[in-house]
């Protein structure tokens, strides 16, 4: 095992790890408090494309989590950062509720296309508009490429299929900014100012959370809540640094073994 530098940061997934819908994972609030009493920096990372930071923050506040809005880093944030960095004027195919995270961005005369989960924009006319821009040279930025998501009445197409269709039609590869892309994790750590080797990720998605984080050079802790399924820990290579019952156990391990 290679020598690791000291632990400076903990990235924590939200849905499925700290809470399941509107219910907090049992003991999670106290565990977060304990973590905050240690010298590590904490950041909350999520692949949401429908909810702006404020909505996420308010939900966590309601569940009595001690959290600050600027500690939340979402795939929308990652997209916004990229747009700002490159000074793109994007055509935003994102849910109305996510537009708040793009406030202040110039969207006139678009020269880039940003695609999130936005069923109301996945119609023929709007996709043609996006297609023509990309054909003319506009970069295609994908919040993430999920194939589908679960709704009450069954499975529903995610942004992935439509992004794939646009890639095929234009022969252009999308830049994906959400988990499990390496760039997502590196960007989340950039604001803390630490290296991946100095950070650990806690999440319930073996591929997007643990696999992605470990590919970026971090250690990954898989929790058996949320979307975790039996034997998920065998589905990523290398295996998760640690698999444990839930967030409180993950925090205990960090406090007693990694500091």
């Amino acid at each position, binding site marked *: 095992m290679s020598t690791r530098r000291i632990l400076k940061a903990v990235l924590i997934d939200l849905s499925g790890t700290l809470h399941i819908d509107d219910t907090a994972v049992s003991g999670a609030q106290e565990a977060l408090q304990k973590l905050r009493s240690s010298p590590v920096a904490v950041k909350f990372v999520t692949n949401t494309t429908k909810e702006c930071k404020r909505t996420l923050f308010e939900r966590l506040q309601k569940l009595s989590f001690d959290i600050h809005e600027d500690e939340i880093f979402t795939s929308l944030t990652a997209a916004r950062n990229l747009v700002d960095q490159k000074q793109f004027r994007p055509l935003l195919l994102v849910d109305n509720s996510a537009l708040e995270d793009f406030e202040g961005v110039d969207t006139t005369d678009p020269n880039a296309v940003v695609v999130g989960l936005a069923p109301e924009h996945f119609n023929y006319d709007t996709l*043609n508009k996006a297609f023509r821009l990309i054909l003319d040279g506009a970069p295609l930025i994908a919040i993430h490429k999920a194939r589908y998501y679960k709704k009450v009445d069954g499975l529903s197409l*995610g942004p992935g299929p439509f992004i794939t269709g646009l890639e*095929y039609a234009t022969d252009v590869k999308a830049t994906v900014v959400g988990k499990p892309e390496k760039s997502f994790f590196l960007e989340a750590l950039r604001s803390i100012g630490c290296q991946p080797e100095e950070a650990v990720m806690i999440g319930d998605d073996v591929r997007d959370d643990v696999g992605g984080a470990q590919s970026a050079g971090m250690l990954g802790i898989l929790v058996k809540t949320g979307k975790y399924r039996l034997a998920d820990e065998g589905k990523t290579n290398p295996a998760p640094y640690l698999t444990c019952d839930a967030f409180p156990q993950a925090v205990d391990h960090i406090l007693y073994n990694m500091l």
Partner: protein
Amino acid sequence: ACSVLVMAEWCEPVGRVKGVLLDICGVLYESGDGGGVPIVGSVEAVKRLKEANLKVRFCTNETQATREKFVKKLQNLGFDITVDEVFSPAPAVCQVLKERGLRPHLLVHDGLQPEFNKIDQSNPNCVVVGDAAEYFTYKNMNEAFQILMGLEKPILISLGRGRYYKETDGMKLDVGAYMKALEYACDIEAEVVGKPAAMFFLSALSDMGLEPDQVVMIGDDIVYDVGGAQQCGMKAVQVRTGKYRPCDEQHPTVKADGYVNNLAQAVTILLEHLH
């Protein structure tokens, strides 16, 4: 008539070419509101081909309307064309469905539905996707997706796999993009009926009673018209109308046997090399 000596190996040796396979959209006309607009010289060009006693067939991936309606539209624009001369994916896929006992859920343009009137669509065990255009709503895509995900053996048949085409009001996504979307969503691979499937070209050749090396294909899609025809052993020519873009002439994998401005120019060159 005096004309510049043009390098036209695709017409040689003299007398080799006995038939022509023509793409329709982007070669004969440009589709769009109000029925579309003929491409300059194309109506005359088709007449000249037939007057020269060449066999002519039309190979199209058009799937927004039945063959009958589609041909009527072209006849109204002045084209000498009949239903029997047109090869389109819908009749071809109906044959495939019958042969394999498949009952389709149709994700197609409303105008194409009548082509499937004789097909059992109850309790679908496959999805057929065509150029549904404005019928590619999220709801319709989702329905097709859910049906595929509910099948033990998901079968997706795509009427062509074109990436885009040109209409009078601009470039538009073609069925291929939506086929890819469903492939990705369901983690499956679609079967393609229509260009560039070899079966499709060969059925037109068989109808003409000609061998591939006796026929020239003229199209605006460098990969699916030109490349697809070449893969069947035909010579194929790219027109600079329709969906053509200058970068097509530097395509990494397909080199057309000829690049012409339009169908009229292709026909002029061909007729000069007939005798």
